[in-house]
């Protein structure tokens, strides 16, 4: 087991470096001067040159990349051009809110997805299956940002039950785990949960169907095992794959939150990315993408290791 974990970790290192390279290059394929956001239109050549040196934009690209990675390893992702604050602090602050949203959405989406998937797979080709499958396909096909709008229309505009945008008065800094604040989380979390719900349902349904059609299930039933105990075997066999899919979905929710956070003005990493893009705040853009991608790589690593440790069929040697 240890050598398996070690190998996975070693394998992640080139991936992490490549991810850093992609994040770095992204900013350098950007058309226009990276200083355009800070420089006044009538800035003198000298001022532009000074700033270029200050931000390190005057050095050759490989040197810039090396320096950037070196600083990143020391926890320094530069400072935001727009606000002047350190990028890492801004990103981590925002990521905290996104994690909160993603965990809530995962709780909703995974619970429903597992439930629908299991009953759909178990009662295959009955009306239960048809209803669950339809919900799942609607979940994966709905443009979630539009669903967010529709939920706002129903629950905020028409019924006036839940707030439409934001994270409560005082923003994210004044967050507390009470109803006053939690109600801001409900609509974004429900909206975020539909895609994972659909995907988990579809995965678990297929898994359950496959497992139930295997010979060992026949054997279990033949020896007179109670049906709910047969079901326990099904769950045990489906768990590793289901877990891997859920881990990946959690990663997608963390990294792909920009649309929903924009709809709900939820102060997370997606909203930060949005403002970094439109203010052309390149250090912030670079830093946010890097942190989110590293989160995703790390989560994938965890999922791989978790899957290998609970599934004896995966070779760990």
């Amino acid at each position, binding site marked *: 087991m240890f050598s398996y974990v070690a190998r996975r970790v070693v394998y992640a290192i080139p991936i992490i470096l490549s991810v850093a390279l*992609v994040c770095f290059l992204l900013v350098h394929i950007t058309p226009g001067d990276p200083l355009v956001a800070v420089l006044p239109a009538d800035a003198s050549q000298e001022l532009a040159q000074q700033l270029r040196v200050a931000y390190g934009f005057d050095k050759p690209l490989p040197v810039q990349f090396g320096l950037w990675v070196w600083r990143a390893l020391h926890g320094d992702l530069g400072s935001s051009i727009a606000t002047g604050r350190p990028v890492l602090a801004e990103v981590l602050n925002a990521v905290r809110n996104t994690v909160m949203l993603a965990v809530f959405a995962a709780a909703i989406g995974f619970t429903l997805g597992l439930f629908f998937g299991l009953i759909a797979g178990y009662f295959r080709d009955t009306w239960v299956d048809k209803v669950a499958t339809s919900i799942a396909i609607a979940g994966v096909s709905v443009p979630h940002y539009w669903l967010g709008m529709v939920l706002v229309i129903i629950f905020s505009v028409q019924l006036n039950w839940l707030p439409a945008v934001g994270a409560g008065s005082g923003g994210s800094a004044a967050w507390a785990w009470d109803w006053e604040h939690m109600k801001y989380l409900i609509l974004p979390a429900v909206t975020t949960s539909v895609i994972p719900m659909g995907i988990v349902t579809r995965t678990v349904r297929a898994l359950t169907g496959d497992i139930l059609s295997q010979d060992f299930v026949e054997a279990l039933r033949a020896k007179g095992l109670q049906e709910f105990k047969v079901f326990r075997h099904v769950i045990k066999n489906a768990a590793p794959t289901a877990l891997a899919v859920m881990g990946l979905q959690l990663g997608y929710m963390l990294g792909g939150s920009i649309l929903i956070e924009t709809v709900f003005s939820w102060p997370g990493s997606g909203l930060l990315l949005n403002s970094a893009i439109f203010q052309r705040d390149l250090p912030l853009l670079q830093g946010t993408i890097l942190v989110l991608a590293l989160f*995703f790589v790390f989560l994938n690593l965890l999922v791989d290791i978790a899957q290998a440790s609970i599934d004896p069929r995966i070779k760990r040697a």
Partner: protein
Amino acid sequence: MTVITDTALQAAPVTKARGYWATVGRRISRDKVSMACAVILLLILLAAIFAPYLGLADPYQGSMIRRLRAIGTPNYPLGTDELGRDMLARLIYGGRLSLLIGILPVILAFIIGTSLGLVAGYVGGKLNTAIMRTIDVFYAFPSVLLAIAISGALGAGIVNSIVSLTIVFVPQITRVAESVTTGVRNMDYVEAARASGADTFTIMRVHMLGNVLGSIFVYATGLISVSMILAAGLSFLGLGTKPPEPEWGLMLNTLRTAIYVNPWVAALPGVMIFAVSICFNLLSDGMRSAMDIRN
């Protein structure tokens, strides 16, 4: 002594062996859901193409005095948008750009990804490692993040949004193509073709392509649904189409301010995205089960 008479022979049912694709075609044409989806998609596509001949209002012509009319207003069956433009016309015209930026990236990625995957899978060795490890890097990004990062870096615009979505889908299609190709490569009939002196190109064209394209095609059809949502999503964020072009994602964005005035008109463009996306998903599911002949 029994003699099979001519009449008995003629009475025997004529069973002509049907080819694989003919069987698949027959199976899918019997699937009501898939056919319904195909018809809906065809209608939306045809309406978008022939929009100028449908006698619709001008989708660009606004009016300050008839802004945000409700659904069902005489002359404006689906109401008007925030600038007083006819929603029905804009939704139908909107199909042109929305379908283009949603479907084209998948077609481009299908071509590029299939080529890369075929080569990687068939040639194997170092080339395979080089292609597949590069692909792995893109898998380290959640697809929405990657699409938005590239679009955000390149700047807003239709071409940039198509480029960024193509980059997002190429790795996914390449991975599928590579694994299918690797599977087919080790089949006996490929070995037989090689033994009988067929060159690499012929084997690729005749034996590999024919046997891998089906699976990749079905996979790509499923991706169109994601692509439609993402493409409209980029426009929704302001990274795709620019006003005043009618495009569903952008319309959804500009109508967001209207949800307190006329909420259901504001939600209409999303219905179109949803409809197209769900139809492609169901169609892809239908094709997958039609191609799985063993059942």
